[in-house]
């Protein structure tokens, strides 16, 4: 058994919270740059240029890309041959979130109860998912997500006899509903199959995948391209003021599902969709 001290996990989570919030992902930066080069709408081009400048300032001056530094989702892929020592895993991860948000001067946006609405003042707790896998490694993915885009996400339980066409129309409708509100150009994470809850988790995990790569699965690759093309026809554009760039990338994850259904979840991501990972 390989031993990993949970304090090390705490330190990594702390670092990833700061990194994700201050440094725009390389794949997204390149996608905005590409959109800027290709944009023909003058206003859209100016806005895209400011988004690149924003990312440069954030990195250089150690500023959060966006003031909404989000609620943190933490995904752990924990090798089953790892023995965790030094304390509880969950409390170590949350201690990492608290430390990262304090040190990085990130906004504390979490309220204790959705009804009572008292700020925890630490940005903890995070939403944590742990998957036990083979081996003796640990992969930690931290995804701080703002609620401007989270609020525009959607889930539909489609019929099993539905297919790409119906999936596509639900995704397009979801983006249409988001309109200018969720900081376009968007990144879409889509989860297909599983159950009601599994589809939503897959959609969020899909947002952590690089948008300059496509899925190796042929049937999904076709769908990712088709959705990207269709969504860009909406011409919502940066700030919703028109232009070619409505969506920068679409990633899909799927899971086996029941003969009676086809769950589809769309997690809308803004142009500052954030995630950072580390494997130890």
């Amino acid at each position, binding site marked *: 058994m390989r031993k990993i001290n949970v304090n090390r996990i705490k330190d990594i989570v702390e670092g990833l919270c700061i990194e994700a919030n201050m440094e725009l992902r390389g794949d997204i930066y390149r996608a905005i740059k590409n959109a800027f080069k290709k944009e023909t709408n003058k206003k859209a081009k100016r806005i895209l240029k400011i988004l690149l400048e924003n990312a440069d300032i954030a990195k250089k*001056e150690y500023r959060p890309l966006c003031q909404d530094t989000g609620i943190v989702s933490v995904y752990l892929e924990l090798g089953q041959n790892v023995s965790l020592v030094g304390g509880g895993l969950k409390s170590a991860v949350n201690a990492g979130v608290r430390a990262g948000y304090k040190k990085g001067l990130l*906004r504390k946006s979490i309220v204790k109860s959705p009804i009572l609405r008292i700020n925890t003042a630490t940005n903890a707790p995070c939403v944590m998912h742990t998957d036990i896998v083979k081996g003796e490694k640990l992969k930690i993915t931290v995804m701080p997500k703002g609620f401007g885009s989270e609020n525009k996400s959607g889930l539909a339980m489609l019929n099993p006899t539905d297919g790409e066409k119906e999936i596509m129309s639900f995704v397009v409708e979801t983006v249409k509903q988001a309109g200018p509100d969720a900081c376009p150009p968007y990144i879409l994470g889509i989860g297909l199959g599983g159950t009601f809850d599994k589809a939503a988790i897959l959609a969020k995990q899909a947002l952590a995948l690089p948008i300059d790569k496509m899925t190796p699965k042929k049937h999904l690759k076709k769908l990712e391209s088709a959705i990207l093309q269709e969504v860009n026809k909406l011409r919502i554009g940066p700030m919703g003021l028109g232009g070619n760039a409505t969506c920068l990338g679409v990633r899909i994850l799927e899971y086996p599902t029941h003969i009676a259904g086809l769950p589809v979840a769309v997690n809308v991501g803004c142009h500052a969709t954030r995630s950072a990972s580390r494997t130890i």
Partner: protein
Amino acid sequence: MKKVTTPLTKQARVKLKCGEEVLLSGTIYTARDAAHKELVRLINEKKKLPFELKDAVIYYAGPTPERADGSFGSCGPTTSSRMDKFTPALLDKGIAATIGKGSRSPVARNSIKKNKAIYFLAIGGAGAYLAKRITSSVTIAFKKLGPEAIYKLKVKDLPLIVGIDSGGCDIYA
């Protein structure tokens, strides 16, 4: 680009047209969901308000904590439509303009038209860029709300787009 300053009087407001890009300088006040709820409660209970609403500008924003030099690391706009249900009460009390991101409801738009107010768009997700246009800040109310407190900000050349003008012309409609 046209420069505008606060207080934003009616004469200045009526000259602004939807789609126009402007640079705003002067004093603005942050207020987001929880602060709006409080402000409207104070109005309904006829209590004293934390700042003079007449011709004032509200920025829908909750900044990241102050850095060592007192400035914010990041301070961009939040989604405006969540404030729509509170907007008529505030505009009726004299608020000149609101700054946020995204579209507004017909109720908010009608109130903007009725009061000859303005709705400005700031660039969502550009919080680091926008924070550099804030020259000073001070918490003036609801400190216990943390990032949702009301901050009085001095801004210099804050880049905005007129989203809804005083005649009710809406860039998204």
